[in-house]
C-alpha cells in the first residue's frame, strides 16, 4: 500500500492496450463495446488524430502521416473515459484520482468488454502510465531539494536552465517490461512557480509477453512498481508539499 497525500500531484492515469496486427478489427467494434460499457460511460464522442509513423525504408527513416478516428466513451463527469481506435484501447482517469481500487475495475471492465467483442490474438503493448504535475512555490529552486531523479549539471556548465527533459528506462521482469520515467519542465501559472511533469510509464516491452487473461495481474504488478518509482523520484520536501496523510 503506497503513501497517501491530501494534495496529490497526479493529473492523469492511463492504461493503454495495443493489440497485435492479427487481431481482427473492424469499424463495428467500438459500437459493440459501447453497448457493454454505456451504463458506466454513457457519453459518446468522436475524435480525429493525426498519427505519424516512422518506417525504416531503403533511404533511411521515412515519415507516414495518416488520420485515424478514435471513439471516446465518457463517464458523466468526463473525468474518466475509454478511447477505442484501430487495435487500441485506452482507459484514462483525470484528477481527482479515485484511488487504484477505483481505477483498476474500470480498466478490467473495459478490457473484458473488448475481449468479449473480438478475438484478441495478442497484446502488442500494455502500458500503465501516471502523469504528475508538480508546481513548486519558489522561483529559485535546486532540483535535488525536491527530486531524487533530476538532471545533473557539472560545475563547468551554466547552472540556470530554461527548459529541460530528463528520462530513462528501467527494466523489469527479465526485460519483459520497461518503465520509462521522464521529468520535464512544463508551462506554469507563474514564473514564481516552476512546474514539472513527472511521467512514469510502465509498459510491456515484449509483444505477446503476457497473455490476455494475465492482464489483471500485470496491471497490479505495474501499479506496484509505479508507486515505488514515484516515491523513489521525490524527496521529503515534495512530500510536505503534497501533504502526506499518515
Amino acid at each position, binding site marked *: 500500500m503506497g503513501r497517501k497525500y491530501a494534495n496529490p500531484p497526479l493529473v*492523469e492515469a492511463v492504461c493503454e492496450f*495495443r493489440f497485435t496486427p492479427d487481431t481482427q478489427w473492424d469499424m463495428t467494434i467500438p459500437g459493440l463495446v459501447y453497448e457493454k460499457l454505456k451504463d458506466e460511460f454513457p457519453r459518446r464522442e468522436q475524435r480525429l488524430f493525426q498519427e505519424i509513423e516512422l518506417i525504416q525504408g531503403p533511404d533511411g*527513416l521515412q515519415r507516414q502521416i495518416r488520420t485515424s478516428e478514435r471513439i471516446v466513451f465518457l463517464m458523466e463527469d468526463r473525468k474518466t473515459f475509454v*478511447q477505442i481506435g484501430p487495435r487500441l484501447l485506452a482507459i*484514462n482517469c483525470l484528477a481527482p484520482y479515485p484511488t487504484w481500487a477505483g481505477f483498476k475495475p474500470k480498466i478490467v471492465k473495459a478490457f473484458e468488454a473488448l475481449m468479449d467483442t473480438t478475438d484478441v490474438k495478442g497484446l502488442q503493448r500494455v502500458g500503465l502510465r501516471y*502523469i504528475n504535475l508538480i508546481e513548486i512555490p519558489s522561483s529559485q529552486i535546486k532540483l535535488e531539494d525536491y527530486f531524487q531523479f533530476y538532471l545533473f549539471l557539472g560545475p563547468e556548465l551554466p547552472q540556470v536552465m530554461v527548459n529541460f527533459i530528463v528520462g530513462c528506462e528501467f527494466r523489469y521482469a527479465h526485460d519483459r517490461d520497461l518503465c520509462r520515467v521522464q521529468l*520535464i519542465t512544463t508551462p506554469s501559472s507563474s514564473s514564481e512557480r516552476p512546474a514539472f511533469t513527472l511521467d512514469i510509464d510502465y509498459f510491456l516491452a515484449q509483444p505477446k509477453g503476457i497473455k490476455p487473461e494475465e492482464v489483471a495481474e500485470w496491471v497490479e504488478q505495474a501499479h506496484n512498481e509505479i508507486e515505488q518509482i514515484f516515491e523513489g523520484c521525490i524527496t521529503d520536501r515534495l512530500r510536505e508539499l503534497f501533504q502526506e496523510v499518515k
Partner: protein
Amino acid sequence: MLAVKPWIGTVNEPFLWNQSLGKTVSRQREIEQYPAYLRASAIYSRLWDMGDFTVVFSLELLEGWRERSVEVSIKREIDGCLKELQRIGIRFNKIDEIREYLLQFPDIIEATVKIAELAVAYLPEAQFTLEVYQDPEIEDNHLVLYARFKDYERPVMERIRGIRRECRRHLIGKTGWLHLTTDFQPAG
C-alpha cells in the same frame, strides 16, 4: 545492453547515444554521419513538443519509441499544445483555467494550435494572450485569443474577421470553442 538508457541534447548541441560504441557522439561532424537519426530527432522533437530540446536516439532506441507517436494521454497532449503556443509567442492568462478547459474539451487542442499559428502568421506585429472567457450571464465559457497592438490605426477588426473565416474550418463539429478578437488594450 544497458539497464538505463539516457538521452538528452539541445538543438545547438545535440548528442547521439551510440549503442554499439557504448558512448555518446557529440561533435557535429560525427553526428552528420547519421542523417536518419537526425531526421528522426527532428520529427520526434516536433511530436513530443520538447521546446528547445532535440532528442537524438540510436536506431535501437527509436524502434522501441516508435509506437509512442500515437499519444493517448490528454495531459501530455495539452502540455504539447501549451509548449507549442509558448514557442510561437502566445502568452497565457491563468494557465490552470486553460488546462482545465482543454481537459474538458480536448477536441480543440489541435485546433487551438492551428488557429494560433494562423493568427501569428497573419498578424505578426500583434501580441497574443490566451485565456478562458467566462460569460457572467450564462453558463458558457470558451477560449479567447486576444490580439493586442501597439497602435490601432490600421483596420484591426477587419483583419481579425478575415482570419476568423480561415479559423472556422478548424472548429467545425468541435465541442469547445476559441474566439480570436482584440480588447483594444495596448501590447505590453
